[in-house]
């Protein structure tokens, strides 16, 4: 497949895939602000995200092809790095880019029916404009090799995310405080990040991440560098919803338009986590004593606490979207736990879970969007009896739910298995027990929904057979089948995650 893509792509696409990946959606966003019709906006946003998907696949192919160096470096404006802004793609962010753009395509395909139902008509094309800006920002965060540029793209994506969340207000007014809360927390996170980058700039005199990485080993004793490290981890932790910095997430996920919830849960926290991994492993290094201390004393306990505490919180929720939102924080805990092991095996388990969780939560929130569209409720009681009236939607929901628990033959099982291997390798058997315990909590909260869906009579017996529209069902089933497929053969995602983990440790490890 790599060969076909590399041979069929034209030269300009091979040479300029990196900037086009970000700039095509970013230039379509203002165009959409000028387009009056929502339907045209929908088509354009599908086209924009699809173009990004093609470019990200090309980048992945170039990076993975055996004859290349494994790194694509693009100098914006031909100002050579480290002075100019560099777009730098290696196996780690190529994987993230493919994930984000594939999720962007699926999300924008399914979006139209839910957007028509939930967004005022005159705001539809502006809504899509904000969506494309958010998408371009997320791709930009993943692709850039410049620490300050990363901040700029982080803000592009965050600012448009606040708008997207706030647009849930026409369905539920509580979206407005949720968006404001998110704005305050997100801005604090971005500020902390930029303060940290400022410290690093003060210590090293450069903003290019690879250049910072080459200068840091001599400066590990410097308080400036250590303070910068702390600021960056806390700032990106806020964006990635690392426990206990996740307070913005449950509200933002439960009150935003259902399409936005689906897209954000599959991409936004993942990209923030990617940025954190990039700083932890490529810019800084686990060899530094202070980073090892941070792994053991901060990231590992916080990851475990997220896993346990937020799974408990999820058990007691009555709103399905809130329950899934708490479960998202718990799943971020698994990834952080994998990262905090600090080995290649641990990091690849974390990244593998990142991929799988994007598919799981994407499918779950997509099914919830279908229910919101046809039945207007997100309470567990509203889900009662839906297994009979919307069997296709709910079967896909059940598959993703089982994958979230980690039932064998699903993707969720494979990633927990890898996490378990990495933990055993390190001798942290007690952490394995906690992972299993947290999975049992997942059985309880997913089981509560599935029990209502399949075994309870409908609250309103007149609810007849009412399936979601086909544009929603197709992406939903693509994700559900992907969950099963990658649960049986893990070759592709696990290979990607391994290469990504190796690339995170620096270009020398990958090739």
């Amino acid at each position: 497949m790599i060969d076909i893509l590399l041979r069929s792509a034209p030269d300009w696409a091979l040479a300029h895939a990196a900037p086009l990946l970000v700039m095509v959606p970013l230039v379509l966003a203002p165009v959409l602000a000028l387009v009056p019709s929502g339907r045209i906006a929908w088509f354009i946003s599908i086209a924009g995200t699809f173009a990004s998907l093609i470019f990200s696949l090309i980048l992945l192919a170039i990076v993975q092809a055996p004859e290349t160096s494994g790194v694509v470096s693009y100098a914006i404006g031909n100002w050579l790095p480290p002075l100019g802004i560099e777009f730098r793609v290696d196996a780690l962010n190529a994987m993230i880019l493919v994930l984000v753009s594939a999720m962007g395509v699926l999300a924008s395909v399914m979006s139209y029916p839910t957007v028509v139902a939930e967004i005022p008509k005159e705001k539809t094309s502006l809504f899509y404009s904000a969506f494309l800006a958010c998408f371009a920002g997320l791709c930009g965060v993943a692709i850039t090799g410049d620490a300050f540029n990363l901040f700029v793209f982080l803000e592009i994506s965050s600012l448009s995310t606040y708008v997207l969340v706030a647009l849930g207000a026409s369905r539920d007014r509580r979206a407005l405080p949720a968006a404001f809360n998110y704005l305050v927390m997100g801005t604090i996170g971005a500020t902390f990040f930029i303060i940290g980058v400022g410290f690093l700039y003060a210590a090293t005199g450069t903003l290019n991440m690879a250049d910072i990485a080459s200068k840091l080993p001599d400066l590990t004793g410097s308080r400036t560098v250590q303070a910068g490290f702390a600021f960056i981890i806390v700032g990106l932790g806020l964006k990635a919803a690392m426990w206990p910095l996740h307070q913005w997430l449950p509200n933002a996920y439960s009150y935003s338009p259902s399409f936005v919830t689906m897209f954000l849960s599959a991409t936004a926290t993942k990209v923030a986590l990617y940025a954190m991994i990039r700083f932890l492993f490529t810019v800084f290094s686990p060899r530094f004593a202070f980073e090892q201390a941070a792994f053991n004393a901060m990231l590992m306990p916080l990851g475990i606490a997220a896993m346990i505490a937020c799974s408990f919180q999820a058990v007691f929720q009555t709103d399905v979207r809130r329950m899934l939102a708490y479960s998202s924080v718990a799943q971020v805990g698994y990834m952080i736990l994998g990262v905090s092991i600090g080995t290649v095996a641990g990091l690849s388990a974390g990244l593998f879970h990142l991929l799988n969780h994007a598919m799981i939560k994407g499918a779950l929130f997509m099914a919830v969007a279908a229910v919101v569209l046809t039945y207007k409720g997100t309470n567990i009681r509203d889900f009662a009896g839906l297994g009979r009236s919307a069997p296709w939607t709910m079967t896909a929901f059940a598959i993703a739910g089982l994958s979230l628990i980690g039932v064998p033959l699903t993707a969720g099982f494979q990633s927990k298995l890898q996490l378990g291997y990495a933990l055993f390798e390190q001798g942290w058997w007690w952490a394995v027990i906690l992972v299993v315990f947290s999975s049992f909590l997942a059985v309880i909260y997913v089981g509560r929904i599935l029990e209502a869906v399949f075994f309870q009579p409908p609250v309103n017996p007149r609810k007849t057979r009412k399936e979601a529209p086909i544009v929603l069902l197709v992406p939903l089933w693509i994700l559900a089948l992907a969950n099963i497929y990658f649960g049986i053969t893990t070759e592709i995602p696990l290979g990607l995650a391994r290469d990504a983990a190796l690339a995170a440790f620096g270009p020398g490890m990958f090739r």
Partner: protein
Amino acid sequence: MNDDHHVILRVVSKMLIPVIVMFAFYTQFHGDFGPGGGFQAGIIFAVGVILYALVFGVPSAMRAVPPVFTRALAAIGVLLYSGVGYWALLQGGNFLEYQALFQEPPGKHKGQHIGILLIELGVLFAVAGAMLTIFYAFAGRVAEIRDKDW
């Protein structure tokens, strides 16, 4: 008997607004040679219109500079900026490479000059449009529940 208390304000601001807008463009084009540039110029330009809205009322400002226009202005600014990037791509250079705009050899500066001028113009449009859109969004907001309906 004229009961308008703001005669002086109106007269003075009528005199000042053209000067403010002219200063905005001075800042814009001075950006080539010294301090200044699109961002500051956009803010100053927007301040001219905002002053007009403060003194003469938001409705008349919205008649002079309609909200649809400010929103389009912001979008066009971004398009102009990225358009220069795509132009450089079409000419065979890297994204936003000014030197490639006219396919000049090193040492010639026409592309650099035109490139930064257009980019700064894009910034001017985007900043002025966004500032005015934000101002209209706040100033033109009507309370959803009137006070006497509580």
